């Protein structure tokens, strides 16, 4: 139980960080691939995922969806929504 809470806490922290990154990218009107952080449950993970900030914002509109590096899914507690070579989307 404690481990699940810690995992959720990590994912939410990564997600909050990515929100800030997306806001800055939007303010810069960045038309490039923007570096975001993997939102997996591993606190030590610092994997970088690149996508247009609008793409991130569209995923982020779904409150329970997270972006993770391929292979960083925790399938016991989350469902794989989409896969790509650059990143996967999971839903809690």
């Amino acid at each position, binding site marked *: 139980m404690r481990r699940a809470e810690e995992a959720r806490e990590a994912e939410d922290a*990564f997600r909050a960080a990515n929100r800030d990154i997306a806001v800055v990218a939007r303010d810069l009107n960045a038309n490039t691939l923007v570096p975001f952080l993997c939102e997996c449950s591993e606190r030590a993970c610092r994997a970088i995922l690149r996508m247009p900030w609008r793409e991130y914002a569209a995923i982020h509109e779904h409150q329970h969806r997270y972006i993770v590096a391929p292979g960083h899914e925790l399938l016991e507690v989350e469902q794989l929504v989409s896969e790509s070579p650059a990143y996967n989307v999971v839903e809690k």
Partner: protein
Amino acid sequence: MANGSEPRRARLAQNEVLYRNVNDRIEDLNQVFDAVAAIDGEWVCECSDMSCATPIKTTVAEYEAVRANPRTFMVAPGHVSREVERVVRGNSRFTVVEKLGAPAEVAQQITHEQQAGRRRLGSHSRVCSQALLTA
């Protein structure tokens, strides 16, 4: 005639600012997850190559020393763009570069805008960020 390479240089500076922004968030995370990387942290290279995500190991103090000057950035050894920056110092783990000319102004301006934005958002930044993204 305006220097045709200025837009490119500005774009390179913007790329580095985007990676600096990621590193700032990593620093925030290191503080939140204070058991991880409180002494040695892992950041990402702030070079102008958008496909680069080379990890750089530094102490928090080293990172903050670079970050204190909006014109200086931390890049992996060999990742210096000599057309827009000069080497300030370096070691086997990372090189500190300083932006030159217009890119320096771009980097400084963007950093100031970011800082002002974060101050405006204050403790409600998370909520405001959400609203901004969905606006």
